[in-house]
C-alpha cells in the first residue's frame, strides 16, 4: 500500500527531489543544543491552541449576554468540555512561557547576531502577537477578572499621546468596555491575529531554515580553533525524533496541569460593580502592572502612568532592535546586549514576584 502511494506521488512530484533539502539538513550538536528545542515546543503549543480553539468555537457564543453562559455550558455540560477549555488556557500560558524562554535563550546564546537580525525581529513580533492572543482571549469568558484586566489594558492604550484615544476607541468598539469590545476581541482572537501569526510564523520558520541553527559564540570559537571538535546530527530523523520527544513531554506536562488544576471560570462580569480586591492581570503582564502601580501620580510635571507607559513602549522598540546594538562582532556590543538582557530578565522576575507578594 505504502509502495503504491509512494509510486503515485513519485510519478507526479518527484518525491526524492522534494525531500532532498530535508535529508541534507543538519543541526549542530554541543552541550547547549537542548536550548534548540524551545522554539519547536512553542510551535507545538501553538498547534494545540489552534486545535482546542477550533473545538471551543463549536459552542462559544461571542456576546455579552451569552459568552459567560456558553463557557459555563462548555465546562459543565459538554463532555470533556472542561478539559478542552483547561488545555486551551494552560497551553496559552505555557506558550508564552516557552516563547519568553526561547527569546532569552536566543539572546544569551547570541543567536540574534548577524545575519539573523530578521529572525529575531519576526520572533519578537510573534511574541507580541502571542501576548495579543492572551489579552484578547482573556476577555472572551466575560468574567470579572477579564473585564477589569481589559478595562485597564485598553485604558493604558488610551494614555499614548496623540493616537491613544483613537486606538482605545478602536479596541473597545466605543468609549467603554462593553459587549462591542467582546465582539471585537473575538474577531481579533480568531481571525486577525491567527492570520498575522501564520504569515509571520512562516517567515520566521523560512528564515530559520535559510540560515540554519546558530552556534553559541563560545562554542563557535572552540570549533574554529579545533575544527575536528565540530559535531552535527541529521535533522531527519535524528533531531526530528528528539524534538518529537520534547513535544511529547510538553503534552504530558500540559495534560497533567489541565487535568489536575482545571482553569476556573470565576464570576460573570458586571460593568457596574467595583473592581474586586486582589485583581491582577495574567502573570506575563504582571511586571508592567506592578511598575504602573508603583509609579507616583506625578513625576516632575508629567502624569506618572503616561511616563511609565511611554517608557515601556520605548523599551519594547529598543528590545525589538537589540541585534543592531551588536553589529561589529566585537565584545563591546555583545557585552551591552548581555547586560541589557540580564537587567531585563532580573527586572521581569523581580517585579513579577513582587506583584504576587504585594498586597
Amino acid at each position, binding site marked *: 500500500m505504502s509502495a503504491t502511494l509512494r509510486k503515485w506521488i513519485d510519478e507526479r512530484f518527484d518525491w526524492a527531489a522534494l525531500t532532498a533539502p530535508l535529508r541534507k539538513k543538519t543541526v549542530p550538536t554541543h552541550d547547549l543544543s537542548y536550548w534548540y528545542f524551545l522554539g519547536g515546543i512553542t510551535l507545538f503549543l501553538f498547534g494545540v491552541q489552534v486545535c482546542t480553539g477550533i473545538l471551543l468555537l463549536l459552542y462559544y457564543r461571542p456576546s455579552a449576554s451569552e459568552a459567560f453562559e456558553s463557557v459555563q455550558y462548555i465546562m459543565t455540560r459538554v463532555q470533556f468540555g472542561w478539559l478542552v477549555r483547561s488545555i486551551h488556557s494552560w497551553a496559552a500560558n505555557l506558550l508564552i512561557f516557552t516563547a519568553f524562554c526561547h527569546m532569552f535563550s536566543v539572546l544569551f546564546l547570541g543567536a540574534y547576531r548577524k545575519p539573523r537580525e530578521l529572525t529575531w525581529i519576526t520572533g519578537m513580533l510573534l511574541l507580541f502577537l502571542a501576548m495579543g492572543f492572551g489579552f484578547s482571549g482573556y476577555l472572551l469568558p466575560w468574567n470579572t477578572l477579564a473585564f*477589569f484586566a481589559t*478595562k*485597564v489594558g485598553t*485604558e*493604558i492604550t488610551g*494614555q499614548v499621546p496623540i493616537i491613544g484615544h*483613537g486606538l482605545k*476607541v*478602536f479596541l*473597545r*468598539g*466605543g*468609549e*467603554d468596555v462593553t459587549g*462591542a469590545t467582546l465582539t471585537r476581541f473575538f474577531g481579533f482572537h480568531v481571525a486577525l491575529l491567527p492570520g498575522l501569526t501564520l504569515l509571520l510564523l512562516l517567515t520566521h520558520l523560512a528564515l530559520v531554515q535559510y540560515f540554519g541553527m546558530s552556534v553559541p559564540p563560545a562554542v563557535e570559537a572552540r570549533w574554529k580553533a579545533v575544527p575536528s571538535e565540530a559535531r552535527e546530527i541529521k535533522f531527519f530523523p535524528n533531531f526530528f525524533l528528539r524534538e518529537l520527544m520534547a513535544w511529547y513531554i510538553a503534552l504530558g506536562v500540559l495534560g497533567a496541569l489541565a487535568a489536575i488544576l482545571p482553569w476556573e471560570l470565576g464570576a460573570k462580569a458586571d*460593568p*457596574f*460593580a*467595583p*473592581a*474586586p*480586591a*486582589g*485583581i491582577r492581570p495574567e502573570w506575563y503582564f504582571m511586571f508592567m*502592572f506592578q511598575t*504602573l*502601580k508603583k*509609579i*507616583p*501620580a*506625578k513625576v516632575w510635571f508629567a*502624569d*506618572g*502612568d503616561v511616563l511609565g507607559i511611554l517608557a515601556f513602549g520605548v523599551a519594547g522598540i529598543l528590545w525589538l532592535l537589540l541585534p543592531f546594538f551588536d553589529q561589529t562582532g566585537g565584545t563591546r556590543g555583545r557585552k551591552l546586549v548581555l547586560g541589557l538582557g540580564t537587567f531585563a530578565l532580573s527586572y521581569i522576575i523581580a517585579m513579577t514576584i513582587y506583584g504576587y507578594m504585594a*498586597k
Partner: protein
Amino acid sequence: MVKILLGGGLLGSFASFIYPVLRYLVPPRVADLGGDQVIAGNANELKPNTAKIFRFGSRPGLLMRNSDGSYRALSATCTHLGCIVQYRSDLQEIWCACHNGLYDLNGRNISGPPPRPLDVYEVHLRGDDVVVSRKREA
C-alpha cells in the same frame, strides 16, 4: 505627465478602497441618554457608613451615606486607569482595587497612582428618592 496621471489615479483608487474601511473601523458615537440627573437610590436603602454603585447614564457613580446620615455622590471611575472604585467603610475612604489608589470622601486623590480627583456630583432628596445630578459649571 502620463506617469503622474497614472500614479495619481492609482493612488486615488487605492485611497477610495482604504477610506471606507478606515471609517468602518471607527465605532459610531452612542448618545449617552442618562441626562444630567438620575435617581441613584432610595433614602432608606443605605445605612450610615455604607455606599452603593449606581448607573449614571452609561457610567458608574458611587453614592455614599456618611456617618451623620448625609449623602455624597462621586464618579466611580478611577482617574488612573478607569477601574471602578469602592467605598471602604473600615477606612472611610474610597479605594481602587486595581492599583491601590485612595481618595478621600470629597473625591481627592490622596495616595497611590491616581493623578486627579474623582468628579463630584450634587445630591438632594426628593421624597424618598436620592437624586444625583452633575454639578453645573459656574
